[in-house]
């Protein structure tokens, strides 16, 4: 589904991603961990097409197409969804109207007619239930005045509504209370299928107990320095990152 080859990217002239290689197959869940500032959100942003990141080398193939050539909205319509680490507030734009517009755009892209009001409402109700999203938040302005946890849950509600092929969850667990974490994980597990894939960025092993990943990668200093299975997450929980940092420095290519 997604093939990232030797991806280099910079922001403000500063090299952030320094040769990422990652292949995600349909039906897979990949976790990405790594210390603060290592480039996890940057990787997500580059995949989503954030303007201020410049790709200087490498390629990204998404479902057989060159992802880097697409505008952010086309990537989204093709099925890339980013649950933001810090969801943005948009005053005055109602959550549900926004979703209606988004879904219509995505469906048009796929050659499907927009849902009529009734079908849309039914879908919205169904997905609210799936991710146990508070109905009161559905009609409020998009993320405006939402609590940290409410914003994160709204991301998952949107994910459920838009049914993307590839979902990237950037620290969706941070800021969720224990119950919410369980609910969100349950929702994600229900959304998992053989046709979609998830990249889950997290600092905590706990989330990975709920959403069990097929692979765990450690990103450090713009590179994936270690990959493994879910046991790697446990090891990290125990040992921290220092041992990997040292290893990474030893193995760093000389420039």
């Amino acid at each position: 589904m997604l093939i990232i080859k030797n991806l280099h990217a910079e922001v403000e002239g500063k090299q952030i991603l320094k040769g990422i290689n990652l292949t995600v197959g349909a039906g897979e869940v990949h976790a990405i961990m790594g210390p603060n500032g290592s480039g996890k959100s940057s990787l997500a942003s580059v995949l989503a097409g954030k303007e201020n990141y410049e790709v200087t080398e490498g390629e990204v193939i998404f479902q057989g197409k060159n992802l880097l050539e697409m505008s952010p909205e086309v990537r989204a319509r093709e099925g890339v969804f980013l649950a933001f680490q810090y969801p943005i507030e948009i005053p005055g734009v109602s959550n549900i109207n926004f979703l209606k517009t988004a879904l219509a755009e995505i469906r048009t892209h796929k050659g499907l007619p927009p849902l009529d009001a009734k079908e849309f409402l039914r879908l919205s109700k169904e997905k609210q239930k799936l991710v146990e999203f508070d109905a009161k938040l559905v009609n409020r302005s998009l993320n405006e005045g939402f609590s940290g946890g409410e914003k994160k849950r709204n991301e998952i509600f949107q994910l459920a509504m838009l049914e993307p092929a590839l979902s990237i969850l950037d620290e969706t667990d941070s800021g969720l209370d224990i119950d919410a974490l369980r609910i969100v994980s349950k929702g994600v597990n229900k959304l998992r299928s053989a046709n979609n894939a998830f990249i889950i960025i997290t600092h905590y092993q706990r989330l990975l107990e709920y959403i069990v990943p097929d692979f765990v990668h450690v990103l450090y200093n713009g590179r994936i320095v270690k990959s493994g299975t879910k046991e790697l997450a446990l090891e990290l929980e125990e040992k921290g990152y220092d041992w990997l940092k040292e290893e990474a420095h030893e193995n760093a290519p000389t420039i």
Partner: protein
Amino acid sequence: MANDNEIIDNIANKEYEFGFVTDIEMDVAPAGLNEETIRYISAKKNEPDWLLDWRLKGLQAFGRQKLPEWQNFALPTIDFQKISYYAAPKSKKKYDSLDQVDPELLATFEKLGIPLSEQKTLAGVAVDVVFDSVSVTTTYKEKLRELGIIFCSFGEAVREHPELVRKYVGSVVPYSDNIFAALNAAAFSDGSFVYIPKGVRCPMELSTYFRINTENTGQFERTLIIADEGSYVSYLEGCTAPMRDENQLHAAVVELIALENAEIKYSTVQNWYPGDKDGKGGIYNFVTKRGICKGANAKISWTQVETGSAITWKYPSVILQGDNSTGEFYSVAVTRNKQIADTGTKMHHIGRNTRSRIISKGISAGQGQNSYRGLVQIGPKADEARNFTQCDSLLIGDRCGAHTFPYIESKNNTATVEHEATTSKIGEDQIFYLNQRGIDSEKAVALIINGYAREVLNQLPMEFAVEAQKLLSITLEGSVG
């Protein structure tokens, strides 16, 4: 390297859709403003002496008045002697039905999307159309007449209902009010007149459509709306003009009179030609609009969506004379490219327990400059008067400006005056967030803008709210790269 503003930096100039010129034979007065011109206009219109006298007083006042200096922009030089003060389609005959209207004219309004043809008027909006200086047609007149409602051109009102016109014209905006009001009093061409009798609720929206067509003419229409005791009317004005390199002056006057328990809702969707992206051409929209709540429990509500004009300069105001009367002002003003808007309102609280509400939403893009200027005045007798003002500015890009000038003058310490103001920017982050959900940047901006302006758009009659929403989106198209 992408810099922070790249996304919101690329200001394109979306072509103005209504910029065409209609080729139609016109009667145009020679340029220049003097007694002779005024007499010419008055004679053309077969006016009674009292109105000619009033015009001449206006002319004298105009001579005495100076151009204001307090506005937040450089007032361009206007050569009042170069303007022609009267232009009318040549067939001066009064139209009894649409069939008699020049097909060229009808085609023009067709292009503008104005519902004139029979089937379109079924939409339930009575329309009066002012083309250059003359009212061309008023639809639905018969149906309104059955209810005793008068809705006609100003000129016709002078002929058919002189007592009403004479009693109220200049009673809210006197000819000496300001230089542009004086100019209008002297040279006003036509306009609309509405009278709603006691206790009648006008069953449809009344609407006037203004169009400046001829070159080097100004448009100086006058609107007078009288809502008698316990009546209600909702009135909408729309306007466009061809694209021309020269600036054209629009100096209209609107007077609203709401008697006891009456309510007037006045909405404007202003889309005069704004000039090109370098600020060449465009309409100077210098308009005096004022209403008076004369009796107790009267209500006047101004709603304006201002997207056009090179310069928009106006303060639709309410004099709250009757006890318990209410004044409202809802405004969205958009400036982009080099457009300027200096607009707001004045609420004069005179009666007891009067209230006013001001919601102003400025949107600036490109190098547009947007000023809100508002006065809330509480008189000594206005016990328990209340005002609430919300004044928001939205910036798109970083070369535009937003300014607010709220003035409060209170002579009564039982009054409550609240003022809230915010300034926000459409952030790259917001646009990216929406992009990431499949929405392109144009649509993203439209969503954000319409969300931002919703409180004001909601005040418009339904069918116009949709149009205004589209207009906002079109106006700002290309403002975000």
